[in-house]
């Protein structure tokens, strides 16, 4: 019983933490980008104010918006939130972990994307349709590339459970591996593509012909838009957390951890998030956005590198035994 309570508290804490931290990470990235552009930048808490403002505003749907349009934000938010709740952040071995593995997380994100693309097409505007079409084009490369990352790591750890993979990487001296290096590159590109970051999409853009993610949200307003913006923030946090969990899991509390271990885990997680956010801002400031049809090569490269990592593992497994 005590175990169950413990697990529940850990899991609840994780879900709450994800919710609280997501806008902050957004704020940090924006602030650092602003500083790099020699602007003062908005308050770190600005994303929270924005969400609050949107929540208080009235909703203005188009006349021909269907019921799907009104349900979609909730579905998207729930799918991404559940996916985020499944990723170990400060402690591995979360309660929800045995209900879903890394492939299911990819599936949940695909559900969110499917719903968002359809929501963008619901009102029947030219921008919405183009956004949906491009989002799905990006997904055609990003999703298999992500699955290749999943393949590599789960073959190393002999498990597709994210907790088990994190435990394996913490406890086993994996050392430097070529396939892990390739996977790192692939995952970084997937992270940029899935979160509409430069060079794939520009998160700061609006009213631009090249927008992808924003184009799907164009018709949304008020609480619906707040949910979608919040979901996008959680998604960014989710991807950075997976990144941390897969490549820098050190310091994460494992097994049935003591309070001190959890505290260390949380603090280290916050530190790693900060570093991740800064790196993202730095990277975004250093490169230019790509033309839409160059994306095929860029994301295709991620996919091929991921496949190479898997192939290497398949072949070397045979050599060793």
């Amino acid at each position, binding site marked *: 019983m005590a175990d169950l309570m413990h697990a529940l508290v850990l899991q609840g804490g994780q879900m709450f933490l994800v919710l609280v931290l997501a806008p902050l990470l957004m704020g940090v990235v924006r602030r650092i980008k602003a500083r790099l552009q020699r602007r003062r930048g908005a308050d770190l808490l600005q994303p929270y104010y924005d969400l609050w403002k949107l*929540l*208080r*505003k*009235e909703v*203005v749907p*188009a*006349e*021909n918006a*269907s019921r*799907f349009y009104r349900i979609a934000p*909730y*579905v998207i*938010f*729930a799918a991404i*939130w559940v996916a985020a709740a499944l990723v170990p952040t400060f402690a591995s071995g979360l309660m929800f972990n*045995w*209900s879903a593995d890394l*492939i*299911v997380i990819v*599936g949940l994100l*695909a*559900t969110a994307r*499917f719903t968002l*693309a*359809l929501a963008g*097409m*619901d*009102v*029947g*505007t*030219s*921008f919405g349709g*183009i956004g*949906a*079409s*491009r989002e799905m*084009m990006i*997904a*055609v490369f990003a*999703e*298999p590339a992500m*699955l290749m990352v999943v*393949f590599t790591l789960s073959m190393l750890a002999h*498990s*597709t*459970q994210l907790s*088990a993979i994190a435990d394996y990487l913490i406890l086993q001296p994996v050392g430097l591996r070529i396939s892990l290096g390739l996977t790192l590159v692939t995952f970084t590109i997937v992270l940029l593509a899935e979160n509409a970051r430069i060079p794939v999409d520009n998160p700061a853009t609006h009213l631009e012909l090249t927008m992808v993610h924003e184009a799907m949200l164009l018709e949304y307003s*008020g*609480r619906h838009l*707040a*949910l979608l913006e919040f979901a996008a923030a959680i998604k960014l946090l989710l991807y950075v957390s997976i990144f941390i969990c897969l490549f820098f899991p050190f310091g994460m509390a494992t097994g049935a951890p003591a309070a001190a271990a959890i505290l260390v885990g949380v603090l280290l997680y916050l530190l790693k998030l900060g570093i991740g956010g800064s790196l993202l801002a730095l990277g975004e400031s250093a490169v230019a956005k790509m033309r839409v*049809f160059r994306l*095929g090569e860029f994301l295709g490269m991620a*996919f091929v590198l991921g*496949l190479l990592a*898997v*192939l290497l593992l*398949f*072949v070397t497994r*045979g050599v060793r035994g």
Partner: protein
Amino acid sequence: MTALLPAAAIAFAILVGLALAIGLVGRRGSAALYVLCAVVAAVLLAIDIAALAVGASTLLLPFGLPGTGVHLRLDPLSGFFGLVVNLGACLTSLFAIGYGRHESDRLRVLPFYPAFLAAMNLVLLADDAFSFLVAWELMSLVSWGLVIAHHRNAENRAAGYLYLLMANVGTMALLFAFGVLAGAGGGYDFDAIRQLQRPVWAQSLVLLMTLVGAGSKAGLIPLHVWLPLAHPAAPSHVSALMSGVMTKVAIYALVRILFDLCGPTPWWWAVPLLLTGSATAVLGVLYAMLQQNLKKLLAFSTIENIGVITVALGLALAFRAGHMIVAAAVALTAALLHVLNHSLFKNLLFLGSGAVLHASNCDDIDQMGGLIHRLPVTAWVFLTGCAAAAALPPLNGFVSEWMLFQAILVSPDIPQALLRFIIPAVGALLALAAALAASCFVRLFGITFLGRARSPAAADARETDRFSLAAMIGLALLCGLTGLFAAALAERLAPVTLALVGGALPPQQAGPAPLSLTPFSSAHSSYNAPLLLLFMVISASLTGWGVHLLASRRTRRTAAWDCGYPDASPRLQPSGSGFAQPIRRLFASLLFRARDDVTMPIPGEMDPAVLRTTLSDPVWDTLYAPTGRAVLWAADRLNRIQYLTIRQYLGFTFVLLILLLVVVAIWQT
């Protein structure tokens, strides 16, 4: 237990009787016929479910080939496929009670329909090569009759012709395969075939011929060309059966011959299955992405799913040959689950397309749009089917893909280096196919049901009748239930996997929570769809509650904003081909030589700009067109033989006789 087969035989006889009786009743008996079909299919379904649990039973009927008779056998494998066939048949018949009323040429559909159901059931029950082939050919012929039901349309006649041609090639290949299987002794019942030892070359010939025979019926590339033409040509409820169910009968033939009749198989048999399967999956969904015709798109998506199933079967063969029994059971279970799952969501989608077709009277998705307002119920069930086809959790399409990936992830332990090279590439192709499928179904649903109506027909569409809706809602619920309770379902498949690969999944109750699907062990991987759904419902409710507490509830409807440039005409929405343009440009320009040519008017002229897209089908151009020309050329040459004198004909006969004698002489020594 032993009563199962006679009961099935009686039900089968009733179906044939119905087919014949329709001549007496005439066109008025439409609804009654479909009701009876649904009832008989439900009875057969119950028998099949019982057979899955109980085990094999056999029956020998005293007619058929002299000395052989008709052997029937109902074992767990045929029971499972029977379940797929009859579940589809039952709900499709329910749909047809309403939908059949709109049929213009009823007598061209009604007699064939029950005969088609009977033929598919007979293929599954046949236990000797002769009855198998008779049933197979009956299935082909009767479905051909249904394909050309609307024969006044020249396209349908062409589709029927191609179908008949390909069906003949397929049956001939299967005939050959069974000939080799039976060997010189000629024991045509399946038990004799199982006992026989065959040399390696004979086994390889069987593999090749089975792939051609069953593969052409299932739609494996490059033998798929007839499928996207023939399936859409039939009335929609028959399309559903052909695409969702008949292709599964072909998969049954593949499984029955490769896993059961051939005995132990060498590891390299997996290679052709893996390669054709993955190529079929990716090309099938790419073709689907480029289609404008609603039913053709669905037919190409069937080809994709057949590819996925074939890959899973190939993996199972590889694992079985490498003595990785549990992995083989996981791969085979994934294949069987995908057989069931695909049949459910493809039936649903084809029935939905029938409802759309009837409502708007057109099958071009570029003429549709906004149907969610006109057909609210159909739209939501169709969305369920699309989400299942796009392999999204927690629906059923995801479960089988998930299991397949789990099987791929243990394949580094396979001893053969060649397979270790191929399998990761196959896995990557499957991942690509899954992502393309999601894109394809976003396009299908978004263009058809969302947005604004692109034509008056779509704007005035009407919701379909109650029977049709009931059938579609039933299928949508089944898509959800098979997704949620996949663990229980996978456990029921243990008798099938035990019989074919000698192993089964570990007991599913031992998982970390009730209803968890654990293919290997819970430390390795597990997936609990009900819990996942529960979490999603809880978090969505929490979100809804939070928003309810905090947010403003004011809502004001107004014109679409569209960045401040609202477009008056619904034609300015992206069309189907517009939506597919990025994919076409990135993939199809290489594979299908897709070209977009834009002709802009001279500045100042009032001519419209014209976009012309051209595609070429590489399979047709490189394989079928030259073959067709060669056949015609040969026929022209052979024409000369038709006008010879009697002496010359006698001379030919003489030479042939000598040749045969020489062959026999060589054979004897």
